[in-house]
């Protein structure tokens, strides 16, 4: 009797056409040679290509380091922001998420310029710090959201039952805030692996990340190899999403502003 469920149909068709089909295209092109014949060469080429493998390993390493750095700096910030006793101002929260709305390329260029002016050599160190600038708000915001909607009576109960503040944090607050940390990881880890312009600016083209090789291949009309590299990235996305499981199921439903 409920015909409103059919309202999902146009979007379903849209998603199949412009989300599912394009992903199938990645596989389609990855498994083809230049003249349209089926081949596995593009995928095997990656596993024998020392440069590509090295870049891939470096990208994963930088992404892990950047994610950990963002958690290390972002978690305490989110914790303080969400604590009514430590921070009562909504404006401070806005100030923390505001940089997300500034053009990332422009911010990155300015960061690189700041490093140069301070006499710091552009390289892996600046890459890591610059990335952390760029992605920190994306880590702080989901953790803040999760902590904010947490039922305070849990930690109060733990306190009443004799837990020390350290124990309350370790056994109650931290586990309950993990879904927020996971969404933060999703918003920081994959974008770090796949970024191209940002890493180019921050290292003056000295260090390439995985996104840069994909972009170079696609732009130089080597679509099939580019597609194969994208496919490998898709597999990693699939794995991280599986790892995350259903943790985030509901908590992304709030507005971002």
């Amino acid at each position: 009797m409920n015909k409103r469920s059919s309202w999902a149909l146009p979007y379903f068709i849209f998603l199949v056409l412009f989300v599912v089909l394009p992903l199938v295209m990645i596989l389609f092109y990855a498994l083809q040679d230049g003249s349209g014949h089926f081949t596995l060469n593009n995928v095997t080429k990656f596993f024998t290509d020392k440069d590509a493998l090295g870049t891939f390993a470096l990208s994963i390493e930088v992404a892990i380091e950047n994610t950990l750095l963002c958690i290390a700096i972002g978690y305490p910030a989110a914790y303080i922001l969400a604590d009514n006793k430590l921070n009562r101002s909504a404006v401070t929260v806005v100030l923390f998420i505001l940089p997300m709305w500034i053009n990332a390329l422009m911010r990155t260029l300015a960061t690189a310029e700041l490093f140069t002016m301070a006499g710091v050599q552009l390289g892996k160190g600046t890459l890591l710090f610059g990335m952390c600038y760029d992605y920190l708000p994306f880590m702080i915001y989901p953790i803040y959201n999760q902590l904010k909607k947490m039922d305070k009576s849990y930690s109060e109960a733990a306190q009443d039952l004799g837990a020390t503040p350290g124990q309350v944090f370790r056994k109650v607050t931290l586990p309950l805030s993990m879904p927020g940390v996971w969404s933060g990881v999703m918003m920081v880890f994959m974008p770090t692996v796949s970024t191209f312009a940002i890493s180019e600016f921050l290292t003056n083209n000295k260090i390439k990340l995985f996104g840069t090789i994909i972009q170079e291949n696609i732009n130089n009309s080597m679509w099939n190899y580019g597609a194969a590299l994208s496919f490998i990235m898709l597999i990693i996305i699939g794995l991280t999403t599986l790892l995350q499981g259903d943790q985030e199921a509901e908590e992304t439903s709030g507005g971002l502003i």
Partner: protein
Amino acid sequence: MNAKKVIAKAYLWLVLIVLYAPIAFIVIFSFTEAKSLGNWTGFSTQLYANLFTGSMQNATGLQSAVINTLLIALAASIVATVLGTVAAIGIFHLHGRKKQTMTFLNNIPMINPDIITGVSLFLLFVFLGISQGYLTVILAHITFCTPYVVLNVMPKLRQMNPNIYEAALDLGATPAQALRKVLVPALRPGMISGFILSFTMSLDDFAVTFFTRGTIGLDTLSTYIYADARKGGLTPELKPLMSIIFLIILVVLLVINIRQSKQQNDNL
């Protein structure tokens, strides 16, 4: 004020200072004439004047990049808001497997990094032989914006009394009337935040635009900055432009948030 609070405040301010250093840097150096960032040659508003009078190198390039960015963001976020709202109503009334499938599909564009969205759509357009330009960029932006509209409208549907819509129909409203007079007013806050989110994400996008704009020389602000920086010399007028954009965003966000927290206080 106890020690814990002082340390907490100090930490927040330290992170904020570091976070804003590059932005402050742009704003400060927008008030000098030097060509390169970080070169101070005395206070001047020349760059602002250049920006508004168009007396600068490649003024038309930058102007059309700004106009393109705004038009694309406007078109994409309007379509995404309509499509996403209708979809959210549909998904809300789905059950079981179908609902799971739609939720899963809706999550894909949000999980996919920009480069995957960009490359996959690029390959699709190549495969279908569609020439790329404004239309493909707008389409691509709709793809990554709509899921956020769905997510913003969904909570409003949950809060709504499901019987009101039925009541409107029972009282003789056509479905179109019921949509306009009952559903849309109830969902409006979610639609507005979905729209604003879409608009800002579209403004900020680089990778997806980069892959779907084709070869007709279509530039948005992001691709313009990228090409400019790769050429070596960044157009100095970008500094005042960025400062102005930053100021507008700051004011809009602060106004929205202060109004929201006022409303919440009123409701209490």
